[in-house]
């Protein structure tokens, strides 16, 4: 792997190195960060005094990204307020997940973090009521094919996304954190037992479950284009644990059947961000990952690299494709995957010959 893509993680760890950057280095870094939705995150890591030392060029781009992020944060607070009221009115108990959860918890990764949608979870028994409440108050279900709608309802952990046409917000309504089709699950009661109330009265996962959910999201996803942000989320959340708490977290994840994913994620953090663990944690990671260490370096790390023509390599593209296939694999049993793959690969073949956009032109 070329080292350039990895540099993004160094920038996040030691942003002050940018005080020494030449204009061309800034241009390159701004393009890579902006393309991976990490520019406002990067900007948020500077002390105000440091920002003043930067060139007008750098400051202007950072400032622009921060302005955009602040608007989004404002919007998230507003949506959370409205959704909480709406759902409570319908007798539902919403839990705010992922990005919205980080904002409400004020985890350090929420600063500058952009998000494309708001994720809310309700108990499966409340799902229908929550859905109706949304549809009755201006939210629209995003148009999906009947096939996809059935897939969502039967096999997925969330409904097809909702959009609010006036406010331009997208919402994912979950009833659990993992697609049932994967055959892996965390009991609903365990999920709801691990929630906490914020000072303003909203419900989110506790820190351990915020981290666990973040790791599950990374490993049960198929889109690795912007996975570098998930790595930063994992790092910022894990950073809040003391070493004994981290051991408890590993033990908890093993009880719940996600020990492997958690060990992979912690090793990935160590590999990309240079985190050091206590001896006990290191031993556990060594034991859990014996014979599989190569996967961290050869597959997972290249797959979570930032994406940009300036830094993409053959290795990162292959790794992202492998994780893409794996993401589909875990979400579709063979009898569904094979016919599905046959259709898609015919189209892929035509595309590879006639160009990716043959079907559109």
């Amino acid at each position: 792997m070329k080292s350039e893509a990895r540099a993004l993680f160094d920038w996040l760890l030691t942003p002050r190195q940018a005080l020494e950057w030449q204009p061309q280095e800034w241009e390159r870094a701004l393009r890579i960060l902006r393309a991976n939705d990490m520019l406002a995150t990067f900007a948020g890591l500077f002390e105000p005094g440091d920002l003043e030392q930067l060139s007008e060029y750098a400051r202007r781009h950072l400032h622009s990204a921060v302005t955009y992020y602040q608007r989004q944060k404002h919007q998230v607070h507003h949506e959370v307020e409205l959704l909480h009221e709406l759902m409570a009115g319908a007798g539902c108990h919403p839990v705010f997940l992922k990005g919205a959860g980080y904002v409400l918890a004020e985890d350090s990764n929420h600063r500058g973090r952009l998000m494309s949608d708001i994720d809310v979870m309700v108990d499966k028994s409340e799902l229908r009521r929550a859905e109706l409440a949304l549809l009755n108050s201006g939210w629209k279900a995003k148009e999906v094919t009947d096939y996809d709608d059935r897939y969502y309802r039967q096999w997925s952990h969330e409904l097809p996304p909702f959009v609010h046409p006036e406010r331009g917000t997208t919402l994912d309504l979950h009833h659990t954190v993992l697609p049932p089709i994967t055959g892996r699950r965390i009991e609903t009661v365990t999920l709801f037992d691990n929630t906490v109330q914020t000072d303003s009265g909203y419900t989110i996962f506790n820190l351990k479950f915020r981290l666990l959910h973040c790791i599950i999201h990374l490993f049960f996803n198929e889109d690795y284009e912007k996975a570098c942000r998930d790595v930063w989320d994992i790092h910022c959340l894990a950073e809040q644990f003391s070493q004994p708490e981290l051991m408890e977290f590993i033990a908890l994840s093993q009880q719940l059947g996600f020990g492997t994913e958690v060990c992979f994620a912690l090793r990935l953090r160590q590999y990309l961000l240079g985190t050091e663990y206590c001896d006990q944690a290191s031993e556990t990671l060594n034991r859990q990952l014996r014979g599989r260490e190569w996967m961290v370096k050869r597959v997972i790390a290249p797959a979570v690299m930032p994406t940009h023509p300036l830094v993409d390599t053959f290795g990162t593209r292959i790794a992202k494709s492998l994780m893409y296939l794996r993401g589909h694999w875990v979400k579709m049993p063979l009898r569904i995957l094979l016919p599905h793959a046959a259709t898609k690969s015919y189209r892929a073949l035509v595309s590879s010959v006639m160009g990716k956009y043959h079907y559109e032109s």
Partner: protein
Amino acid sequence: MIIDTGHYRFRVSGAPEYCYSELSRMYGDSVNLSPEKPVDFQLDFTSTSWLRTLVRPQRVLNVDNQRIFNPIAKDKCLPSIEWGMNWCVASYDHTRLLIHSSVLVKNDKAIIFPAAQGSGKSTLATLLGLNGWHLYSDEMAIVDLNSATVSAVHRASSLKNQSIKVVHSQFPNAVFSRTTEGTQKGAIAHVQVHSRAEFDHFGPASVVAVACPKYVGGARTEILPLNQSQGFAQLVRNSFNYSTLGEQGFETLFKLVQGAEFFALRYSNVNEIGDFLETLV
């Protein structure tokens, strides 16, 4: 190739050869100006597949890892560069208030023309820009958040369909790009309104009037005064990033409207409109 438009610097790469010679004619001394300075945005054309390099060649325009428009035939790339530059600014500059509008300046006083596509704002702006006014922008008013003044960008002005002939017949000596037929907006050509040397003298200007133009073929000139809140609403409606800027956006617009008069214009005769606008500056 680097194009320095003042506030924004762009690098264009991978474009078909003819685009570079056209851009050089349009942008003159703004091309490859201060090459040591970084650029704000890069527009990269790539091919869509190896076979497409031989059969019906297609290009796709990317900004970093985003494909921003649908792929287009190789001979239709020129307007996409202009649209790509607009896309970058509208998507990523939240340090200024951006309003979909052309901007004309005379005696350091600016009139902005917020309007949607097809209102004839670009044609009006181009004709007046070639006839004594300073054309600060034919597409976007760039408003400073502190002073609420508008600033100029050095860009070619965009003309569609019949407008190309109209402008060409009145200003046959102006520098026109080649016309690209059959784009999604019809035939497109660009025209250079100011040289870089002229542009370098264009300082920030306060807005004295906001005029919403509507070209109606054969219509008599009608000038309808609007009140401040109608004008404010027009500016909000045509703004790219008013809501992103939140309170700052509101305060900037509030300051801007304090010193301005507001009009709705319905016209077919540009000279009559020009005479009226003269009275405002």
